[in-house]
């Protein structure tokens, strides 16, 4: 019995000793590291958003809720004493939408006291329920007509109506975007002009963009009878419809 206890104790000690020897030394802290990346420009009463810094990948990843509706953010960046960061802490990132839609990126450069440098690439991702859109047309060969009537002036607008789920209802003019892509891959922006109801009456299941005959800038870019593929951007998400529409100017 006694021997058993002694043996067990020895075994335990050995196991503990084994665990101890497996502990790896902590790697030295680089003086060119980014220590923290925090966004305080969020609505009052909401906790600051903390970016995830990955030293191995040299990335910073920030997740932003679509509920905040931010299109810009001001990060507070910490670096070790004596180090500098560029763009600087407190410099506003103004192109969040294009960053979330992966059209652009920002790289931060941390320079340590000793001159050593490290780059970090910023990734901004939106946190939002997945946007779903029903196809407007039934097939490639049967594009739905979107017709404008210049003879009725501002009342003769054509409508691109989307049905689906999780469309943002607040601030659509800023947080959503619609484009037409033609057969030569030219991209034409369709401005959001409101939907004829107050913003509080908008629903997450329907959304429409209007093409006004009075918008001559836009009409100069669109071709009568041409076929266009609709892409819709709902805050950070981007959906390109499979089947095109046909744009028509009525006599």
């Amino acid at each position, binding site marked *: 019995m006694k021997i058993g206890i002694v043996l067990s104790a020895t075994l335990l000690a050995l196991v503990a000793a084994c665990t101890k020897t497996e502990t790896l030394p902590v790697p030295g802290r680089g003086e060119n590291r980014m220590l923290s990346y925090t966004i305080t420009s969020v609505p*009052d009463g909401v906790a600051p958003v903390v970016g995830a810094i990955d030293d191995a990948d040299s990335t910073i990843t920030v997740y932003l809720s679509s509920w905040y*509706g931010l299109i*810009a953010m*001001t990060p507070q960046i910490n670096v070790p004493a004596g180090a500098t960061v560029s763009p600087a802490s407190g410099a506003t990132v103004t192109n969040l939408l294009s960053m979330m839609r992966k059209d652009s990126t920002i790289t931060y450069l941390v320079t340590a006291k000793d001159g050593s440098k490290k780059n970090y690439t910023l990734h901004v991702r939106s946190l939002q329920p997945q946007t779903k859109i029903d196809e407007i047309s039934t097939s490639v060969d049967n594009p739905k007509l979107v017709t404008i009537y210049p003879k009725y002036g501002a009342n003769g607008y054509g409508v691109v109506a989307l049905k689906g789920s999780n469309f943002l209802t607040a601030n659509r003019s800023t947080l959503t975007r619609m484009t037409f892509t033609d057969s030569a891959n030219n991209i034409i922006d369709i401005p959001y002009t*409101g939907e004829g109801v107050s913003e509080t009456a908008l629903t997450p299941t329907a959304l429409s963009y209007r093409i006004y005959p009075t918008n001559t800038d836009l009409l100069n870019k669109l071709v009568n009878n041409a076929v266009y593929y609709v892409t819709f951007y709902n805050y950070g998400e981007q959906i390109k419809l499979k089947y095109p529409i046909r744009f028509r100017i009525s006599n």
Partner: protein
Amino acid sequence: MITRFSLKNIIAYSSLIVLVIFLFSCKKETATPDPESNGIVTGVYALNNLPADVNATSASDARILYYSLEENKVVDESQKYTTNWDIAFGGIYNSSIMINNGKSSVSPGYGGPGAGAIYLVVDRKFDAQYYDTLNFYVTKLPIPVHLFDASFNSVKTAPDESKMKTNTLISLDHFQSTSDGWAYYDFYGSLFPGNPKKAHVVYTMPRTIVIKTAKGNYAKICIQSIYKDKPEDPDRDSKPGYLTFKYAIQKDGSKNLDIQP
């Protein structure tokens, strides 16, 4: 001997060092101008016919005008995510007064570094001179001009921090809302029945607004007119989009707004 000599030396050298530091510190103080000030000091400033969106229509929001109270100048929209502006005029006919606050989703500076706030001073006893304080409409037109200065001068200090609002804008008085505003909008022309030229007219009220600038200083502003040449009795022929206002700014960071011109 050696010890005494080095002690003397130490005293002499340290005196010299102190003197040099002193000289340098003096030099620094006099040679560094404040790049922020732009010559604008604590005081009262008046603007006449500042053009906002003079082509605005009632169909959509006007182009936003950004203004720096700290520097008394118009700021370009490209700087909306900086602390270079303090107040913005947007919405229908530039009638919404917005502040620069990065935490406020109704501020054009949302997401930016601004830390501004706003407070509309409403004094019902004072209002009774020109306004029905129970049914919220103007009773005396034209509103006596001297009331604007009276309102402005009566605001002598900024309110408690807790009263300063960050997530709001100040707009038309009780128009499609239950909020007090800085101007009465007679949408139907109900103050002048039968006179079509008196519908859709904005009557600026003598109400002073306290603003905390993007950098944290306090200011007060009283808008006198949004029409060109501030007509006493505006109608539909008056040209909107031209702001006439008076403001005072306190540059020492205190809440003292008892500022004389």
